């Protein structure tokens, strides 16, 4: 799946687990651990080593700094500027016209296809993400038991997350839900007459949702890691108190797992918003049939690189960025009402 050199893990489903590990286990390295040798050397004051270390720090950091400036910061500022212009790639920079807020005005008031794309994207994320996480949690619960062969299952469930973002798999998917595809053969076994689902505006997006859900392995692995952290004593205590399996799940597993659920939810939602490849393949880059798969990023791509309306596309990009920031902030602010962080845990 598309991935981003400027440090985005966004659209890649496999990226989640490592990031989760990184976010949950790597405190700021600028903080010193207790009893580290560092503490000892520090006390010697600003010696020659510390001086050379400061210089060396920037030497080692220089590729990253150049990348930050050249590939991330400057493009972001350029994008912000362009969003106030009518820039298309064909006119030279000197003739670019400042149009003020016209692009944003058009986006919010005069472009129904923009809002259609927003709706498609939200629909996709609102349905696919919860189902994907439910599948991931359900299978993780089934697998959360040490027995021989569990590794094989875990590997097989994870495989779609590695393959699913590719063009090749999107091609397979589209054909699978086409007239002569595997899905209709399955239906015909039950005597149901199928149809070319991918060509039906009412069903095309649903086939993409199924593709997203199919890749439940990546969040599943994270759930499994989380389940291993739940202390056994809690279940024992619940069991002593007479809680059945369902009560234990409801009152022990879910609260103890809520930080992991929260993490998966944030990550998969952001991923869901960025779905591009499958929608592109299904619609041959148009967002069809009848704009039913016009995901936000696909709309942005069409605007910027097919219609060459790069000023407008830049405005879309900035609204996208802000929307993701706002949604993430909402997640975090509501999270404290339902995410349970146990005190004893070193998270």
């Amino acid at each position, binding site marked *: *799946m*598309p991935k*981003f050199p*400027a*440090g*985005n893990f*966004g659209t890649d489903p*496999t990226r989640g687990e490592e*990031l989760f*590990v*990184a976010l949950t286990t*790597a405190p*700021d390295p*600028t903080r010193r651990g207790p009893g580290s040798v560092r503490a000892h050397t520090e006390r010697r004051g600003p010696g020659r080593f510390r001086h050379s*270390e*400061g210089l*060396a*720090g920037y030497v080692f*950091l220089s590729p*990253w700094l150049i*990348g930050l400036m050249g*590939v*991330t910061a400057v493009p972001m500022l*350029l*994008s912000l500027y362009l969003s106030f212009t009518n820039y298309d790639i064909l006119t030279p920079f000197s003739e670019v016209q400042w149009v003020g807020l016209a692009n944003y005005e058009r986006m919010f008031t005069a472009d129904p296809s923009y809002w259609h794309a927003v709706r498609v994207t939200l629909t996709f994320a609102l349905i696919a993400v919860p189902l994907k996480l439910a599948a991931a949690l359900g*299978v993780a*619960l*089934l697998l959360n*038991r040490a*027995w021989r062969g569990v590794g094989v*299952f875990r*590997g*097989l*469930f994870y*495989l779609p997350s*590695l393959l699913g973002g*590719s*063009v*090749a*798999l999107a*091609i*397979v998917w589209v054909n*699978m839900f086409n007239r002569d595809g*595997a899905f209709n053969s399955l239906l015909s076994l039950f005597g149901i007459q199928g149809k070319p689902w991918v060509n039906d505006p009412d069903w095309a997006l649903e086939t993409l949702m199924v593709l997203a859900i199919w890749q439940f392995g990546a969040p599943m*692995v*994270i759930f499994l*890691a989380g389940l*291993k952290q*739940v202390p056994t004593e809690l279940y*024992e205590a619940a069991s002593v108190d007479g809680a059945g*399996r*369902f009560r234990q799940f409801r009152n022990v597993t879910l609260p103890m797992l809520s930080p992991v659920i929260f993490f998966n939810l944030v990550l998969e939602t952001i991923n869901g918003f960025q779905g*591009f490849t499958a929608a592109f393949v299904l619609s041959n880059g148009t967002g069809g049939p009848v704009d039913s798969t016009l995901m936000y*990023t696909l709309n942005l*791509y069409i605007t910027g*690189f097919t219609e060459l309306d790069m000023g407008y*596309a830049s405005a879309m*990009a900035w609204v*996208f960025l802000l929307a*993701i920031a706002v949604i993430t902030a909402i997640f975090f602010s509501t999270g404290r009402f339902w995410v349970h962080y146990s005190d004893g845990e070193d998270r």
Partner: protein
Amino acid sequence: MVTVTPTDVAPTAAPPNARRRPGGRPVLRLLILVAIVAVVLYPLFWMIGTSVKSQEEIVNNLGLLPERFTPGNYTAGWSNFDVSFGRFFLNSAMVSLLTVVGNGLSCLLAAYAFARLRFRLRGMWFAVMIGTLLLPQHVLIVPQYILFRTLGLVGGDWPYLPLLIPQFLATEAFFVFLMVQFMRGVPRELDEAARIDGAGPYGIFRHIILPLSRPALVTTAIFSFIWTWNDFFRQLVFLSQLEDYTVPVALTLFIDSTSQSAVGPMFAMSVLSLLPVFLFFVAFQRMLVEGINTSGIKG
């Protein structure tokens, strides 16, 4: 609803079998899992089966296996376009391998600075790096395209520069993060010992951190390769000449040629394109699925 019992979350002390308690319905659980595996893997088997079916069978034979094995789809797909798929595979391999090199090198340098060296504004830069983790690539693609095009690098003599330059500048913050975290696990006593022996920051990097970071480098290499191999968006944007196409971009050409006769060859090339990722999966399964995950949580 299957819920967790105390035995499910047993600590790691006891051997696996000792934990199984009667009444855990292992058979039922196994049956459910096998059923889910069948559903999950069905698309992959269907893909492989279809890739060796004749056009007629693709339409009429609803089964998984072909009645007549038709490997001709592979040769037909290989040379379906003016440029052979061999070229596309070479292009993809080159981009992916150079990305592996670039990410490994540049992220390791940055990670060493963040994890081990003290310098002004380090905390701020580290926060910025974390901030870029969540930045969607679609936000930057338009201005990056404009910048690289202004520099004459888009569709230039070697059109892969816009794809590769960022990878040599540690912009894949995710890997920087991974390595920082890994290096934190390397005992600082080793640094100190080297320091006493007269090593400076460069010597410590060369003789302590670099050799000890091999596991993190291997992880970075594997994921760099798989993600770049599967990447579509950037390659779609930056590659415009047929002979420069990578495999994912070339595969979309099959969709353009809407004729039904291309389905077999299209599937054959899809199977081939997934093969490297699949081989990586087979070779590094443990590492991909649990290695990074559990090592991080235990660490």
